[in-house]
Structure formats: C-alpha cells, structure tokens
C-alpha cells in the first residue's frame, strides 16, 4: 500500500516540477533555436546525474530512524509550504499559477536577449534551459532521494519520477506548447497533501513514537490532512467573501 503511495507521490511531485522545466525549455527552444536549448537540457541532466549519484548512496548508510526524523521534518516544512500556497490559491487569496503567462514571459526574455554565439551554440538559449532544468531537476532529486530513502527504496521513488519524465516529455514533444491544460494547481494541492502526510508520518516515527496499525495509519493521516485542508479552504473562502467591500460581488 505504502509502495503505491510512494510511487504516486513521487510521480505527482516530479510531474509538477517537470511541467515548469518544460515551459522554460520550450520558450528557449522556440526563441533561440532547439540545438542550444536541447544541449542545455543534456548538460543539466548530466549535472543532475552526478549530484544524485553522489548523494544517493550517502543517504543509505544513515540509520533509518534518524533519517526519517530529519527527512520527515524537512518534508513536513516543505509540504506545508506547498499546501499553504495551494489553499491560498483555492480560496482566491493568491493568483492561480498560469503556465501560459510564464511561457509568454520566458519567450519574451529569450527573444529580447542579445545573441552571443560560440561553438555553434546560442548561449542564451543554452543557459535558459540549463538553469531551468537544473533548478527544477534539483527539486525532483530532493523529492526522490527523501521519499525513497525514508521508505527504504530510492528505486520506487525514482520509478515514479521516471514515469512523470516520460509522460511530460511525451506531451511536450507532441504539443510543443506550455502544458496549460494540465491542472497544475490541483496537482500542487495533491502534492502538498501527500508531502505533508508523509512528513507527519515519518517525523513521528523518527521521533520514536509508534503509529497504531503501523503503515495502515498513513490512510488515516492522509484523510486528516485532506479534511483539514478542505475545511481551511472553506473557511478562507467565507472569510474572503465577508471581508469583500459591499457591492464588490455584483
């Protein structure tokens, strides 16, 4: 049960980051040429492989409970940040994440940048896609390493991330446009809930407490986080309506 939950969490969290990376690469490719953009993607991927290759084995030699405490705490802080933003978006306090607007902005930046060529590459296109893939990829690596090492299987988490990579890349190649139709805000809400759930579960175990029903209690924690988040969205929506100036809704 928790293996499927682990793969799904890694898949969703990685897909969100990959959609963001793809948006930047598409903008760089369309504005500055595909050769430079794809070379940037390859260079960033190689850098990521080196970073993950160095960090991954190091995590497996740390005692599991200490790892769960640290990783659970980090995931909880990190997940709560996602959940907080998702609740603010769902209740209307924060603008929805708009991949179309981000794509247009990146495209504009790329088109207006000075052309600086070397070795047959346009360095602006290379740097844009290298930076985008490296930063978003580091976030994916963090998710895969923390999820995988705490659950004792980096491979399962990597499987979820790889499935997300294949799916997002396939859609990117097919549509060659920002993935605005992917319900990114809904996905971010789901990821925030999963990160927070795993964070609560692992940091409690890492702190030395024991869940009644062991792994099965993950479902209970998940239900609690979903219910609390739903209640907070409802509460904030109501608060927003009440605090709006009279006549603002007309």
């Amino acid at each position, binding site marked *: 049960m928790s293996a499927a939950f682990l793969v799904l969490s890694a898949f969703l969290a990685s897909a969100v980051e990959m959609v963001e990376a793809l948006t930047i690469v598409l903008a760089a490719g369309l504005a500055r040429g595909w050769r430079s953009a794809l070379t940037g993607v390859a260079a960033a991927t190689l850098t990521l492989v080196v970073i993950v290759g160095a960090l991954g084995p190091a995590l497996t030699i740390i005692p599991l409970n200490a790892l769960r*405490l640290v990783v*659970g*705490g*980090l995931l*909880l*802080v*990190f997940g*709560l*940040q996602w*959940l*907080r933003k998702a*609740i*603010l978006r769902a209740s209307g*306090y924060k603008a929805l994440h708009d991949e179309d607007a981000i794509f247009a902005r990146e495209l504009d930046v790329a088109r207006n940048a000075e052309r600086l060529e070397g070795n047959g590459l346009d360095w602006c296109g290379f740097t844009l896609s290298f930076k985008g893939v490296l*930063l978003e990829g580091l*976030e994916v690596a*963090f998710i895969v390493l923390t999820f995988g090492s705490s659950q004792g299987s980096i491979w399962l988490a990597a499987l979820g991330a790889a499935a997300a990579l294949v799916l997002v890349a396939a859609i990117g190649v097919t549509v060659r446009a920002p993935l605005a139709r992917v319900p990114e805000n809904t996905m971010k809400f789901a990821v925030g809930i999963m990160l*927070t759930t795993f964070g*609560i579960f692992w*940091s*409690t175990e890492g*702190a*030395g*407490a*024991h*869940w*009644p029903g062991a792994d099965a*209690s993950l479902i209970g*924690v998940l239900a*609690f*986080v979903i219910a*609390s*988040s739903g209640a*907070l969205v409802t509460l*904030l929506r109501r*608060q*927003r309506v009440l605090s709006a100036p009279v006549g603002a809704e007309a």
Partner: protein
Amino acid sequence: MNRLAAIARFWWEFVVGDDWLAAVAIALAIALTAALAHADIAAWWLLPPAVAIILYTSLRRATRA
C-alpha cells in the same frame, strides 16, 4: 562566497519558503513528540493536530498581510 550564499538561499527558499515561523513551530512540535515518546507516553496523536493549527495560523498571517 557569493555562490555559497546563493546556494544556501536557494535551499532555504525551496524548503522553508516565506514563513519561517511555521518551520520553527514544526520543529518544536517534533521535539515535543520525541520528548513524549522517550518518556514512554503515546505521542503519535500529537503531530497531526499540531500541523493543522500551525497551518491555520500561517494562513491567517498570510491573509492578514
């Protein structure tokens, strides 16, 4: 040095974000869970409501700002 500071800032913003008070509160709640568990008192129930309260107060701060 500048590069190190930029890396540290990236990870701080990536993990903690814009509400460091919530991160401190989470650390305190985990420490309390560990203290109860080491005193042989059941502590599994503590973190879920603590997280809900921390999230609620963090959202209140955000909406008031």
